[in-house]
């Protein structure tokens, strides 16, 4: 009997202790603001409010997805065009598109980001057109991109609107008590804790009325488009070419063609194509990068063909191409291996400007 009592006491005490530790970690660190009522006091919310009140803000170390969430909440705009996509669409704005637009691009965007942000944006705004930046990793479940999980609650709610029978593999549960002792959320909390203790970046919110490039900080315009800092924007072509391999591999070093992602993508198009003019944008790669893609990553070409085929069966317009030569974008018209400058994007957007 003593053995049994000793067993029970040890087991119960340790289980309680471990639960308390894990639950406290998740509750107090709370990387996705699940337990906190003070969402609006976050850095991202403050940045979004500042941009709503001013013309431009200076970027800082932030969660871009959360920032876009608050942008949608606080922005008092009437955009005719909503743009979603990865950082390769961030040049689209007043300089490239002759319409009121709101650019909700986020770095490393995947289909989950598109689903979540479009749902939020179309709930608040009444755009006529939706531009979806479609990158080669759109169907790649091995892209390694997990940043969309900042919007996982929004995603899980939005994706079921696209196709009610879609099966959502919930990485992190949406129920309150699940998250207190959830493996995925604990991992997020530990990552967040590590970041907080190792980050040395200042978190001062700054706005500027002019969108002239700054030396070492990017600027976000009111329409969401990005002005890269001088250090980055003025790099020589030698520098750009020297680092080009990283951009070819970006989100594509491993490739697993996911039927689930393909289903979500087509469901997204079908859903929005009913009430909006949907345009798919294929941002070009740097010519040197694309040459290497043709040699080493034929899958990128196959994906472009597949996207065009999907769009064509639905009567959806595709603008741009991963191939820079299709839009006459030269080496100098790129910031790096994968990010076209305004001049290249303007040429692509001209198609839309002409039509409308």
């Amino acid at each position, binding site marked *: 009997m003593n053995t049994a009592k000793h*067993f029970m006491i*040890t087991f119960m005490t340790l289980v309680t202790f471990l639960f308390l530790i894990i639950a406290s970690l998740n509750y107090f660190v709370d990387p996705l603001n699940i337990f906190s009522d003070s969402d609006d006091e976050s850095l991202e919310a403050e940045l979004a409010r500042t941009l709503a009140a001013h013309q431009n803000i200076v970027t800082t170390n932030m969660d871009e997805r959360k920032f876009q969430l608050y942008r949608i909440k606080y922005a008092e705009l009437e955009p005719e065009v909503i743009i979603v996509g990865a950082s390769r669409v961030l040049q689209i704005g007043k300089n490239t598109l002759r319409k009121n637009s709101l650019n909700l691009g986020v770095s490393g965007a995947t289909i989950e980001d598109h689903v979540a942000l479009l749902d939020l944006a179309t709930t608040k705004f009444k755009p006529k057109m939706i531009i979806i930046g479609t990158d080669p990793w759109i169907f790649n479940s091995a892209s390694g991109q997990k940043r969309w999980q900042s919007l996982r609650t929004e995603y899980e709610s939005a994706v079921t609107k696209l196709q009610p029978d879609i099966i959502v593999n919930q990485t992190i549960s949406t129920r309150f*008590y699940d998250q207190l002792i959830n493996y995925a959320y604990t991992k997020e909390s530990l990552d967040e804790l590590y970041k907080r203790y190792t980050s040395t970046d200042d978190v001062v919110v700054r706005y500027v009325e002019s969108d002239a490039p700054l030396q070492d900080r990017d600027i976000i315009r009111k329409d969401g488009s990005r002005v890269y800092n001088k250090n980055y924007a003025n790099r020589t072509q030698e520098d750009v070419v020297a680092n080009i391999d990283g951009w070819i591999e970006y989100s594509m070093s491993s490739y697993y063609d996911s*039927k689930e992602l393909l289903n979500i993508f087509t469901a997204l198009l079908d859903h929005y194509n009913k009430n909006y003019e949907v345009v798919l944008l294929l941002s070009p790669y740097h010519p040197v990068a694309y040459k290497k893609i043709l040699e080493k990553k034929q899958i990128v070409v196959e994906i472009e063909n597949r996207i065009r085929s999907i769009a064509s069966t639905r009567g959806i317009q595709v603008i741009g191409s991963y191939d820079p030569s299709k839009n006459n974008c030269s080496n100098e018209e790129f910031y790096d291996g994968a990010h076209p400058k305004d001049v290249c994007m303007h040429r692509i957007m001209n198609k839309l400007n002409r039509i409308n």
Partner: protein
Amino acid sequence: MLFNSYEFIFLFLPVAFIVFYLIAGKNHSGALAWLAFVSLFSYGYWSLYALPILIGSIIFNYSLGLCLANPDARKRKLLLFFAITSNLLVLAFFKYSNFFIANTNALRSFFGFGTFDYLDVILPIGISFFTFTQMAFLVDSYQGKVKERNLLHYIAFVTFFPYIFSGPIIHHRQVMPQFSSHENSRLNVQKIMLGITIFTIGLSKKLLLADNFATFANLLFDGTKMGEVPHLMISWFGSLAYSFQLYFDFSGYSDMAVGLALFFGILIPNNFNAPFKATNIIDFWQRWHISLTKYIGEYLYTPLALRFTRLGFGRGPFIDTLCSLIVPTMIIFLIIGIWHGPNWTYVVFGGMHGLFLIINHLWRQLLPNKKKLSLIKTSLNWLITFLCVNASFVMFRSENISIASEIYKGMLGLNGLNLGEYYSGNMVKEIVKGIWQVDNMPKETIIESFLLIFLGFIVVLVFPSSSKYTSLEQSDSKLFYVSSTWGPIILAFLFVLSIMQLGKPSPFLYFQF
């Protein structure tokens, strides 16, 4: 309600447990009524549609059981025939009607006739289990073996939530006397300790092992279903992953059932006893799904084998072997196969095991070996047994026979080695890279799959069977988890780690049977 859910572990179970012992302190029958109520509640929570079917089945079988137990009743044999046939018809209607229609349609199409529409039937969960347990009650009532006939005890026996959904198949003589014993409804710390131990082992088998194996098993079976040609490595790795998934899933569930029953003072027999340690197929079936094997053995195999043996008696060794061994074994294993579900793959699975068993018995008859086997011979026996079981599970998991055939071809190397489009010249590297036939699968995932399968072998071959922890006599001082200081500490970590995995969807494989 799934055992591996927050609702069950943190709400249902504590409430059921506390109220049971609060009532049991004053009124034993009241506590049993509460147990029957929570069991029916958990069944209805899972499937409200099936609840009336369960209640109807209980009323029908209990009433007929009482009639059959009365030796003065007229036409008892006819009554038993009616009762058993009714149970089998209900089971067949829910489980096999569309299978029957599909096969009839195939035949009718072949001869150019029109086809029948499928029935809109939903399989009530656990119907195979509660039908079998009650048929044993009927047969035993007829044979005068039933001593305990209390309605409340009967309801508690049939509906007891630890086993109603997915077994083990419980015999009334194993638990009804326990329900009637007042001693069993008193709080027993030692039983609770064993309950926690075995429940935690089961929970971690399911959530930490089975669900992870599922990811890799699905790569093989789903990929082949989608039209991919499985090569040598994925066929072997995927089939191993599935064998481990099935074992950890089902034995994990059974362990949880045993652990939960112990919380309420009830000792139910263990369903597994380290089956992957078996060194021959006869040994395997004495360790795998023990409750089904015992049930079939007692109520089907023994009467059938006796009948056939009489038929073949004195007609020469071949006819004798045919009648006493080959025919009854094959019939029984085809029944075990189809019991799992309405699919020809299950029939073939049963047939394969029937064949393995016949070979095993014949081998013993031809080459009797009473000496203790050397380590090499024992290892070889183990390997052959394991490979046979692994091959049969490919059929068990495949949706149809052609998928299984593709995988068998892959296992035999007939589909190639998958050395990749751009062969680097290093065969080992290429083979490892191509194991899962996923373009550029991350290196970490490949390593993880290796480690997981290695861990699977370690757990099934080195770790003691959890069945050892269900014996009160053994539990006092000898067993690691309950006697050493580290035992409860390791269990607590396993429990918490398992709970942290609860957010994901994780159904049990045997719920479909």
